């Protein structure tokens, strides 16, 4: 089969590899019909996540058709259409039974690696380094899905792939980020980063009763989508004199009740600390650039919540922990417990409350993945979300981009 393989920093190749096989009784094999490039794949692309190996198949947002099941999988049959959560969970350990699926004890074959780095190991993830399990990912024609009896969500007929694909990661991740804010009716929620996770966090904040949502980014197309589709007030951070001060102004000195860092370890910024991070990270003196997190902590109102869906990997530098303590903030973070949100969020899609496909800007064939990674990383071509079609329905690159999202959706100005 064809698969998107990591060959080194910013070196992505589409290679021909063997088809996956059932290896364990609770496995299934899925023929992939749609798969996406995630913002967190960019951290792999840029070489910031350790324990990747040349030849690793990437991708953790995918869906498709079940073609084979292991002998212990009794709830799926060949032919079923499924969305696959990016976290792999056994469904039976202490954590899974509490709904803390991304902390599963039993799905990471390389748990010892993560245990050495973090003290304890999280669940296995698809296509996300050997420390996270080393599982082959879903940017391929087929994927092996472990614990298929508890993970994949069957999709009713008549719902197209693009409406449900993002249940695999970014929609639940944005939703959990908003849920972690503990939103009270009327609360103001500020969201750093209007990429896919930020956009879904904005949508989810409204669903959970926010009275006001403020979005922060620097790319016009993302701010436009946050404003039009997300109904958020927006701050173009390169256009204002300090995000923290602007938020303080906008909230009458109060500060947002909750702040969501949907940026993570590769934050950009225009202030001194951001340049300092960039310099340190570029010579491997630091693992993470935490500019967005610093601002979120600084901006948040006293006793508010900072929710962090953005990925961090190592030791953060100059995080204002004193401010977090001094203001009595609650910090919530972590990999998404995707399984928990699959059914409730599918219901919202079926009810027509939300159309997740609005964020798609590019539809490509698998062979265009290298171009896709580069374009998405550099935010070129107004790129917000790329969907790859391994079965060839993505079409050629040039005639396929421009989805429902991005251009032409804006109402009003964002600056």
């Amino acid at each position, binding site marked *: *089969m064809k*698969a998107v*393989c*990591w*060959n*080194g*920093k910013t*070196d992505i*190749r589409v*290679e021909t*590899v*063997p*088809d*996956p*096989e059932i*290896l*364990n*009784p*609770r496995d299934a094999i899925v023929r992939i019909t749609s798969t996406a490039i995630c913002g967190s794949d960019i951290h792999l692309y840029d*070489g910031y996540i*350790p*324990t*990747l*190996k*040349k*030849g*690793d*198949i990437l991708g953790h947002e995918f869906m498709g058709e079940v073609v084979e099941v292991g002998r*212990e999988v009794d709830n799926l049959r060949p032919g079923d259409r499924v969305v696959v959560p990016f976290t*792999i969970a*056994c*469904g*039976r*350990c*202490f954590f899974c*039974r509490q709904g803390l699926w991304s902390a599963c*004890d*039993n*799905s*990471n*074959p390389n*748990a*010892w690696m993560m245990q050495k780095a973090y003290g304890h190991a999280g669940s*296995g993830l698809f296509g996300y380094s050997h420390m996270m*399990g*080393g*599982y*082959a990912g879903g940017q*391929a024609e087929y994927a*092996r899905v*472990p*614990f298929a009896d508890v993970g994949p969500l069957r999709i009713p007929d008549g719902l197209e792939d693009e409406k449900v694909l993002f249940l695999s990661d970014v929609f639940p991740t944005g939703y959990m980020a908003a849920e972690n804010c503990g939103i009270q009716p009327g609360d103001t929620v500020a969201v750093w980063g209007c990429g896919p996770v930020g956009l879904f966090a904005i949508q989810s904040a409204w669903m959970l009763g926010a009275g006001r949502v403020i979005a922060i980014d620097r790319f016009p197309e993302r701010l436009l989508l946050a404003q039009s589709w997300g109904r958020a007030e927006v701050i173009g951070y390169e256009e204002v004199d300090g995000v923290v001060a602007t938020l303080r102004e906008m909230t009458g000195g109060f500060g947002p009740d909750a702040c969501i860092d949907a940026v993570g370890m590769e934050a950009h910024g225009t202030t001194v600390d951001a340049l300092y991070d960039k310099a340190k990270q570029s010579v491997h003196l630091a693992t993470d650039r935490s500019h967005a997190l610093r601002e979120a902590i600084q901006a948040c109102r006293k006793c508010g919540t900072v929710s962090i869906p953005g990925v961090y990997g190592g030791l953060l530098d100059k995080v204002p922990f004193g401010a977090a303590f001094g203001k009595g903030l609650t910090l919530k973070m972590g990999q998404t417990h995707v399984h928990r949100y699959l059914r409730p969020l599918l219901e919202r899609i079926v009810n027509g409350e939300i159309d997740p496909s609005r964020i798609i800007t590019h539809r490509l064939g698998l062979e265009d993945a290298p171009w896709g990674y580069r374009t998405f990383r550099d935010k070129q071509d107004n790129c917000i979300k790329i969907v790859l079609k391994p079965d060839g329905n993505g079409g050629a690159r040039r005639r396929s981009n421009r989805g429902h999202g991005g251009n032409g959706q804006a109402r009003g100005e964002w600056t």
Partner: protein
Amino acid sequence: MFRVGQAAMIASGAALVALAARQRSWPILGAALAGAPLIYRGATGRWPLPQSLVRRASEAVAPAPVETAVTIGRSRAELYAFWRRLKNLPRFMRHLDEVIDLGGGRSHWTGKSPLGFRVEWDAEIVEEREEQLLSWRSLPGSLVHSAGTVLFEDAAAGRGTVVRVSMELVPSGNALGQAVGRVLAPLTEQQVREDLRRFKQLMEAGEIPTTDGQPAGERSLINLHNPL
């Protein structure tokens, strides 16, 4: 553990060096040279000599058994029953190929070694308390000295069972045992911890997660791209 003997070595070594520093005479320099290794030995527990020269002496001392624990979300009865069927052990203990229960508390064990040697020994159960404890050891005269104890305790808050394991596997004293046993012994703490993790995975999830046999693109022999 920092013992009195070590402290004494450091102290006497330091005294000799201090004396040399104050007197600054040739005979006393000899004392300083004698003092330095004492400090080193006291601080590190090793003489500052090539390891090949000192290994012979240290081999006589068996390493302490490896001890580790894990919490498993199953009852003591279930876990005990699985472990007591000794033929199940190679399913989660990577250094074992096969265990055959010979009855009467005796069993025959075959160890796995990286070089293809088969290392076999007989063992007996030395203590057995239903749903609580199982203890075994190799019979005298075996090529390897293997012993283990597993304890099953109720975990707090209904979280299942805490399984505590103490295991050792060392070459026996004779020359053949030394030669053959060294390829699989001694067990490291990492190995035992991973054995126990696999036991948990098997008992909770019903299978041990793996990626062996999954597809990948072209690998390189040395992972220069990402040494971590």
